């Protein structure tokens, strides 16, 4: 399904058809390790899941992209990098390099020391990336030069749907207007957590903070991409009253 003309949503990724650019974001490799350090002893399955999901994504894509852009936060930890995180990140890049010759890393807020990895693998490391009238940037700050269409990540948007008995969260894409620009927010590829529930949580990106998020449209990522209309309509949907403990 296209989110804007020429930009297709494929699972958790965006694909710019003309220039064959695949955009992925927010892998947060090392997330479980970080949780383990905090005393949350969840077994590690993130890396395995990520690779499996990527393989399926490339099957859906049917062609190999010219360029793969990682729109920030490939790894999770600020300031340091553990052995495990280093190995996993390199392995992930190796895998992506089998699919495309050109990999570009966009700096995210968690990527303060991504330099060594980029140079080891000869990757371009940039603050943002422009092509035609599209700007791709992580979204934790607003870059000086903007384009008609802006693609950001960082927010990890998801939507919690509930009938008040069952609550399920789904990752989603968002599309709306920001100062005359088209703004697209992409979901994270962190498969351990769904992300920020845009129906209730405080938003992080300066692109969204003071914006009327209610007017944005959302696209849920499930078995396929499903259009869910405007957020304000989701907020209005009928509540159901019942006892809970």
């Amino acid at each position, binding site marked *: 399904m296209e989110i804007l003309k020429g930009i297709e949503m494929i699972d958790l990724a965006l694909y710019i058809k003309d220039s064959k650019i695949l955009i992925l974001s927010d892998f947060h490799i090392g997330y479980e390790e970080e949780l383990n350090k905090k*005393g949350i*002893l969840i077994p590690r399955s993130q890396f395995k899941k990520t690779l499996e999901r990527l393989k399926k994504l490339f099957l859906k894509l049917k062609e190999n992209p010219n360029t793969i852009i990682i729109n920030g936060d490939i790894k999770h930890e600020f300031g340091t990098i553990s052995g495990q995180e280093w190995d996993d990140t390199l392995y992930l890049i190796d895998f992506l390099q089998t699919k495309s010759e050109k990999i570009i890393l966009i700096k995210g807020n968690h990527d303060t020391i991504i330099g060594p990895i980029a140079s080891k693998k000869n990757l371009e490391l940039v603050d943002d990336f422009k092509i035609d009238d599209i700007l791709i940037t992580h979204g934790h700050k607003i870059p000086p030069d903007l384009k008609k269409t802006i693609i950001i990540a960082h927010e990890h948007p998801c939507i919690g749907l509930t009938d008040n008995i069952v609550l399920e969260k789904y990752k989603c894409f968002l599309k709306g207007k920001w100062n005359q620009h088209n703004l697209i927010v992409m979901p994270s590829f962190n498969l351990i957590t769904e992300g920020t529930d845009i129906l*209730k949580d*405080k938003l992080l990106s300066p692109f969204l903070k003071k914006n009327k998020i209610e007017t944005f449209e959302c696209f849920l990522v499930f078995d396929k991409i499903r259009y869910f209309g405007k957020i304000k309509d*989701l907020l209005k949907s009928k*509540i159901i*009253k019942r*006892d*809970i*403990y």
Partner: protein
Amino acid sequence: MIELQRTKYTDKEIYSSLNPLVRQWFKEKFKDFSEPQRFAIKNIHNKENTLISAPTGSGKTLSAFTSIISELVNLSEKHQLEDKVYCIYVSPLKALNNDIQRNLLEPLEEMTTMISNLKKKQKENLSKQIKSKNLGIRVSVRTGDTSASKKASMLKKPPHILITTPETLAIALVAPKFKYLISDVKWCIVDEIHALANNKRGVHLSLSLERLQNLAGRFCRIGLSATISPLDDVAKFLVGLENGKQRDCKIVDAQFIKKLDLKVVSPVNNIIEASFKELQDGLYNILDQMISAHKTTLIFTNTRSATERVVHNLMDRFPKKYTVNNIGAHHSSLSKEHRFDIEERLKQGKLRCVISSTSLELGIDIGHIDLVILLSSPKSVARAMQRVGRSGHKLLDKAKGRFVIMDRDDLVECALILKNALEKHIDNIDIPKNCLDVLAQHIYGIAIESINHIENIYSLVKRSYCYKDLTREDFMEVIKYLSGEYASLEYRKVYAKIWYDPDTEEVGKKGRLARVLYSTNIGTIPDESFITVKIGNQKIGTIDEGFLERLKKGDIFVLGGQIYEFKYARGMTIQVKANPGRPPTVPSWFSEMLPLSYDLALSIQRFRRLLEEKLKKQTKNQTMSFIHDFLYVDNNAANSIYEYFKEQYLFSEIPHDKKILIEFYEFQGRKNAIFHTCFGRRVNDVLSRSIAYAISRTEHFNVQITLTDNGFILSADRKLKALEGLKLIKSEELEDILKLAIDKTETLKRRFRHCASRSLMILRNYKGHRKSAGRQQISSQILINACREISSNFPIFKEAKREVMQDLMDIKNAKKVIKDIENRKIKIKIQDTKLPSPFALNLVMRGYTDLLKMEDKLDFIKRMHNMILAKISLGK
């Protein structure tokens, strides 16, 4: 053998067992033994396990301690008192601990004074050995609040009587030096056992006691309890098993020695006709009258917010009589300092009235109370007795309780509580069984103590009554979990808490931090997770986390009587906007509801059936005199009950223990199926979720549930095949259906977090970090997904499901109901109706509560009621 103690010992028999000094002290102080003391002192002297159930003020504590003090004085006289702990006293309440210490130190001091007052000759007569004025018996409190220096001094001079909590006892069991001091314990007293036996704190304690027994050999176990049933099971819980056989225990049943003066009171003459104002005026006038006629009154409400409202309204309506100086609120969300202040002023007799939710039910000494008022039903006979038992400080005083009822269902419920209390039928508690999370914690603790063969651990665990039926498979699953088998081999070191060697079948501790992690993370009480509500930086109040899960941006809700609009959440804080000028969209009455006990529900149902029989055959006078004979209510109340049942009888059918009524009723385009199943909400939760699940599975649309103790409503915007749904549920498959129905629910996720925390999969305290409950909740979402992937039989996941189905809900009795329907012991009656029947009114109202103000609610009921009356008279 568990047996009831029937012999009362004579003064002579008891005194002859006591040390002369203790004997003299007792004689001077009390003159006579109280009932529980007559039964128990001698048994405890003989080191027999004893469970004592008696009301407050009956000398319960001394019935446990007298023999022990006597023994210690004996030892002291012979200079044989060693530096070790002889008696451990465990109480679930930290606040109680200081009281007990005071109550023990006082007699010891008095005895010391007695010695010094004795003439020289008498002194020689009394004891040849005691020359000094000091008995040398030490009593200390050790809890989580005890300072490190105090703990260190306990190592040098150990207390002979140690006063502690279940959690601190479990930590003491792995403390390398302190453990040594408790390794020859002779007695263990478990106080307030009624507040432990039905929850995981009690389960936890039951394993600690078995671990203590491994350490110290056999010791005498003494349980102290307020009103509770069944005493047999509580005794089994206290003493555990030996080689698969129940250990012996004597039960001292003095639950009913206090005389009861109970009444059901209606604030107005005609409860259904009264306007909101009349009802409210009536309520506060009657409260004022009762408070004025007594010295100190204790009022119980069922919720914290109601507590605040009553305090506020009393001061508002009677500003000259009631001020912050003579009345106050006491509930669990108030600060420790505030509660302590209220307790102190209560003890000193400075307060006319205290209003509490549940926090004053437990036994801290609150001084002289001469009246207990119960606002709205306490939902169980035992709870009613515990609350009322707070009055009448001396044993000879009557315990005086007044149930103030607010509607007709309340009236019937309270009338039956009163009947059961007077006729000594106490509802039964359920003791949780095979809790795998608590088990994991203890196996970890045992492995820290020393290397152990798993066979030894298994047999230790099975000595606890709570684990007597634990399967080998479940036990091994927990061992596997603890040894980190769920993670792939390369990372196992992160997850393994113990090592397990399958060849030698031994387990032992892993990691240098094991003891610290254990000591800082054990316990069974889940972290309370309150979300702070703010406007900017200004704090408005708190809501609980379950409530936040229901909120979306723009939702309107009520907090502390004010209306707010939800803006967004950030961690443990939410931002709101005041006065949005729209009515609430989310109800707020859910979290604190006490469930009606199953036994009481059945008792109501049986009464319904009896009354139906009378209505069929007898005149009004005969029926009225039956109500009078059966219930202990006044004329007004009996008449209200008569009218209520008569209306239901004429309008529809009276549902009862052998008849379930389902009413189909349409309102504003929604189809409702009203199930009259008065089994209490724990059973109704199972029934309603299972049926709703079955319908939504076969019909592919969502069904809404409204739930109360008296029944439930399923509703949808199209035709509901509710009867078919009910028929789809087979008793044999109920558990499987319920498992599916609760999967992915908020309730299961929250309970899972508690279980993960108890099993130490989430460490609340880790390397100096303390995790907030909110942080844990985020992680538990991740964790539950991960556990699901490992196996649906992963012990923590399994335990969370068990806890929801057995502890929170009541699948056992729900299954019984379904079975009775299958066997046609319970008939099903169907009715299509344009108006909900009188019995359904409160249930229907529940669906709209909070969207309507209290005034509108009464209006609605009255309007409906008049329509019903009109219809009945037309039918005649």
